[in-house]
């Protein structure tokens, strides 16, 4: 799993890639929850996610719920086909804010 962050138009873009599984998802959770503690608007760029399991999805759900409690923004962007398949299995494609591109997600903020 690769995770890197950069700023874009006032949001923090979390660029997520590779395989997000039980071994690596705690690191994703830590990155996301630190950003939530800073009350930053977050866009997760999921274009390069080759695989995500329920533990990775759980990290996204926890960050989303925290953002919602804080009236903050948490958006998924450019979701890869394998990741979208798993989001749909969990019916979370109807819960998360999902944008076609990182730029579109950042513009929503």
């Amino acid at each position, binding site marked *: 799993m690769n995770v890197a962050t950069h700023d874009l138009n006032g949001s923090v873009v979390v660029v997520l890639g590779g*395989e997000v*599984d*039980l071994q690596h998802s705690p690191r994703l959770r830590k990155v996301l929850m630190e950003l939530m503690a800073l009350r930053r608007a977050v866009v997760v760029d999921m274009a390069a996610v080759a695989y995500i*399991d329920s533990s990775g999805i*759980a990290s996204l759900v*926890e960050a989303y719920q925290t953002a919602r409690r804080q009236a903050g923004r948490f958006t998924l962007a450019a979701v890869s086909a394998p990741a979208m398949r*798993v989001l749909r299995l*969990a*019916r979370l494609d109807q819960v998360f804010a999902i944008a076609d591109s990182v730029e579109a997600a950042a513009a929503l903020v």
Partner: protein
Amino acid sequence: MTPLDRRFPARPERLCDIRRAVAAAAATLGCADAVVGDVVLAVDEACQNIIRHAYHGEDGDIIVRIDGEGGDLVVQLVDFAPPVDVARLCPRPLDELRPGGLGIHFIRTVMDRVEFPPPPAGAGNLLRMVKHIGGPS
């Protein structure tokens, strides 16, 4: 035909190896990419449950076996942890938004049959999952 019959340490850092081995075995049996992806997800989620809820993070092994039976792919996962109460392995309602508890839902959704037959002598638990292979990839 048994394209995979291998013992893995029940550790999160070995899930990647398990996924690779399962994907190769499913492809050997002629599964299309989408079916391979479903089987990999189901095995990964089941192995996570074994690591977390059967072994509770302690050392142990998982035997991953994949067979072709007629037009079906059959996965068998054997662990050596204390027997788990399978009646408690229920998927949670999806309209209840919370971080955990999705693994069993994924397994039951992507596989055609999920069963817990009696484990072989000396083993703790046996999970048997069946997926119809479908047409050639």
